[in-house]
């Protein structure tokens, strides 16, 4: 008999439920009205929503919209890569590795250090592709190492603890790494060297103007996903990973070395985050010790949106979140007369987090968890 008992919500509607429904209605209403206002302002100058219109608001041209979309997609792809790590670790061990954002930051930092050295020695300009490959490999190496160390030192001893203890520990690890990196490399913002012209220039693909770097991001993300898919679905290790995610105990009875698989999970997640770190560095060209904090939380949101434990969902969630983050401030909030919407970009991500966890915690594509973790 399982110790966990399935419990559905009560028939009787409680005040809390009524409150939640109210929030739902309010939010849907807000989004609908915002979009209507947006459309109206774009296409019909004299419309009932004009009185809300903020005189400083820019409105959105088609090109701008497409530009936003592209930004959102590329940023979302990076969120997705980071989200994979969160998803996998949650699927296997059942806790949120708060410090995964720092693994991502470590990749970006490594990229910075390496690219600086290459730049100083002139290799960056002469043979960019080689440098790129090298920094990606180095970032993957460092990130993977960090993730594996984290697991070994801080999480393995707590394997059987109640769920909140590893989470609290991971908060401590995150803090420690952030500040250790600040101590080691200084608090100043670090910039990647200039990217070669042929990469950074704008290109036109199907009426979309998109910077080459963003294309690179999308391509690399896609390739990584494909690689991951191959690993998880087609290899023996992947099968073992899925088995361990399903039920650790039974998997070990089937002869799977659970510890090794867990380490592999952390390593793969770390590698993905490392790649994301390089991409972030190339796209935004700046990195600090705090770079991992916000993207980390947003990536976790993405993982939950897609359904925790579900890898395809994590990437989809990332892209969805990235796009929403880019577009919502200008499409929903601004038409409603909210000034300074670019500040609220982060608030959008957090709001999505709150909403998803409130109303659809199993995510859009369903979670993949073992029954013990589901409780």
């Amino acid at each position, binding site marked *: *008999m399982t*110790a966990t*008992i*399935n*419990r559905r919500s*009560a*028939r*009787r509607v409680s005040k809390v439920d009524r409150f939640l429904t109210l929030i739902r209605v309010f939010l849907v209403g807000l989004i609908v009205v915002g979009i209507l206002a947006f459309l109206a302002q774009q296409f019909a100058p004299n419309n009932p929503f004009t009185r809300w219109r903020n005189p400083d608001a820019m409105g959105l041209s088609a090109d701008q919209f497409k530009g936003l979309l592209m930004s959102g997609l590329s940023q979302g792809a990076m969120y997705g890569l980071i989200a994979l790590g969160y998803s996998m670790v949650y699927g296997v061990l059942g806790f949120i590795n708060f410090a995964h954002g720092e693994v991502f930051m470590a990749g970006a930092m490594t990229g910075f250090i390496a690219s600086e050295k290459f730049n100083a020695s002139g290799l960056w300009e002469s043979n960019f592709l080689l440098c790129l490959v090298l920094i990606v490999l180095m970032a993957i190496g460092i990130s993977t190492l960090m993730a594996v160390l984290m697991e070994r030192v801080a999480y393995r001893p707590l394997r059987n603890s109640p769920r909140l203890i590893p989470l609290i520990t991971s908060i401590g690890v995150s803090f420690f790494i952030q500040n250790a990196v600040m101590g080691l490399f200084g608090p100043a913002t670090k910039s990647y060297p200039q990217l070669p012209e042929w990469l950074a220039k704008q290109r036109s693909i199907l009426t979309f103007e998109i910077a080459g770097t963003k294309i690179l991001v999308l391509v690399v993300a896609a390739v990584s996903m494909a690689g991951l898919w191959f690993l998880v679905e087609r290899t023996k290790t992947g099968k073992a990973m899925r088995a361990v995610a399903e039920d650790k105990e039974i998997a070990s009875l089937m002869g799977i070395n659970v510890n090794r698989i867990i380490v592999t999970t952390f390593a793969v997640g770390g590698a993905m985050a490392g790649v994301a770190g390089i991409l972030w560095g190339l796209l935004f060209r700046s990195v600090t010790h705090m770079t991992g904090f916000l993207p980390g939380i947003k990536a976790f949101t993405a993982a939950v949106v897609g359904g925790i434990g579900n890898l395809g969902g994590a990437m989809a969630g990332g892209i969805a979140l990235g796009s929403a983050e880019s577009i919502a401030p200008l499409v929903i909030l601004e038409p409603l007369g909210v000034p300074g919407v670019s500040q609220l970009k982060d608030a959008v991500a957090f709001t999505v987090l709150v909403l998803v966890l409130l109303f659809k915690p199993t995510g859009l594509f369903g979670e993949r968890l073992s029954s013990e973790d589901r409780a």
Partner: protein
Amino acid sequence: MTHLLEIRDLKVTFGGLDALSGLNFHIDEGEIVSVIGPNGAGKTTFFNTISGLVEATEGDILFEDESILGLEPHQVTDLGIARTFQNVRLFPNMTILENVMVSQHCRTHQQIFGTLFQTKAFKKEEREIRERSEAVLGFFGSRLVGYRMEQPAFVLSYANRRRLEIARAMATQPRLLLLDEPVAGMNPMETAELTGLIGRLRSEWGFTIVMIEHDMRVVRDVSDRVVVLDHGVPIAQGSYDEVSTNPDVIEAYLGRPVESKA
């Protein structure tokens, strides 16, 4: 009031599997009814549905002539149905006394105001809670009282944990007590003692009892009536003698003898 607890055509489905179907059941005040059946027959699901931990798909459950379907577990307990758990789930790090004291939560009222201002009402209630707890614990002899009361529950031996589990349920002052395998894992001495205690739960404390059990001697010694479940369906009801000689029941437990080849 017709029956204390009445169950009509109860059906509980878990993702395609009927854990319970077509279950009709009733119990009157003061009765002790046993529910038996092979493993996986749906007995614990039955209890879980009554206490509100599992949602029923169809049918109705009436307690004191009012439907309790869809109520939250704490509301069910508040109405007067208490239960124990098959795999003893105490509050391991609270003391034995606290385990029993906290079970009286729904029968007591003091809120923050009384706590902070230490009103007479608050102190009186705390005293009463304590006295009731000691009375309930005392039902099991001297095992759970005295110096033991202040020890955390995880130090208890298995049999004592089972007893504490029952004590907790008793402390909620129920009218109906659902005991899920109360003697599982006990040795014959402990089993015999608990059998006597179950009888006393009815005679001295006035509880109506529904009991899931596998140990047939206990069922025989204590029950007024027996209900047999198999694959979620009731296949027999009656006194122990009637049920224990019922061929369907025997088949459910032991299977049908293999047909000899002609």
